[in-house]
């Protein structure tokens, strides 16, 4: 009998693979300004992170994203955080609540609202957090997890994202191009 392995997923498109060129976007930040990657000055690349307010895994990485941005933005690799969740499915992820969180956490990076979910679909994001590291030409160089331990930063052994950024900065091949992490499924619009 033939082996039958089938997978059923919601259909937000196939999304990007490492090596693809990611599209730019214009999304509103928590200060009401439209932000695009092209508009970020002196960038040599972009740490695009799909994340949100409510998800415990996203919460676990709030401080680590702040630290990554503080370290790498001055070197040309800013964090660009995007919340793709539908507010009707998860009210905690509304634009108003994004503003509150960004203020409370003093987010030093852009926290953008993908209200139509168009960008999450184009990138192929499925969960929060979900990272896409882009180079200056928006070529995807790494997809996946921030590191190997979401629960406890002190127990992290592999800093996947930081390692990928370091490789990019030194002009080397990213060694681990793709990783997987457990995350909250993106709350797609119903209907």
């Amino acid at each position, binding site marked *: 009998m033939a082996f039958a392995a089938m997978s059923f*997923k919601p259909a937000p498109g196939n999304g990007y693979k490492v090596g693809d060129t990611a599209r730019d976007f214009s999304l509103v930040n928590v200060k009401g300004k439209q932000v695009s990657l092209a508009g970020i000055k002196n960038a040599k690349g972009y740490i695009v992170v799909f994340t949100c307010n409510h998800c415990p895994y996203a919460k676990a990485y709030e401080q680590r994203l702040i630290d990554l941005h503080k370290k790498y933005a001055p070197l040309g690799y800013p964090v660009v955080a995007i919340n793709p969740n539908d507010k009707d499915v998860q009210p905690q992820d509304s634009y108003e609540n994004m503003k509150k969180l960004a203020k409370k956490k003093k987010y030093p990076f852009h926290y953008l609202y993908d209200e139509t979910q168009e960008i999450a679909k184009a990138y192929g994001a499925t969960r929060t957090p979900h990272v896409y590291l882009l180079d200056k030409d928006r070529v995807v160089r790494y997809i996946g997890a921030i590191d190997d331990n979401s629960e406890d930063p002190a127990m992290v052994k592999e800093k996947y994202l930081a390692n990928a950024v370091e490789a990019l900065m030194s002009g080397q091949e990213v060694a681990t191009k793709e990783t997987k992490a457990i995350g909250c499924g993106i709350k797609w619009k119903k209907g």
Partner: protein
Amino acid sequence: MKKLLILLLVSASLNARAQDIPFIRKETLQQWLNADTDTVYVLNFWATWCAPCVEELPAFEKIHKEYASKKVKVVLISTDFKRNVESKLKPFVKRKNLQSQVVFMDEPNPNNWVNMVSPDWSGALPATLIVHKRKDIALFFEKQLNYETLEEIIQRLTVDGGR
């Protein structure tokens, strides 16, 4: 006083019956996935804080109940944080009176085992893998399921000789 004593005894025996939550490593998962068996394994990956996961739990509980006499094993694999096992997971399982086997995935790095479940799994919750090893069937779902969908699949898989 006597009434109180009886109440205490009853609640004590209920406590004793509340299920243990074994910690499993990826090796255990691998065993379930590879075991040469005609039992249908329904492996559901969830967490107490995941709203769509909690919504679909009754469907898995119903499968567990309706197919109790068939070779069907429902395992609810929690990916909660380890520090929340005592404070959140155990009280949740008790409060909901979950009857399916609940286990805790004691692996800090999902990158070591997510692909084992399915290369198509991005890691998003909820997710479910239904395996019938003898029939060489593995169905993976990265989405919320309802009872009707589950029932249709389990029904087919438990029919002798069919697939």
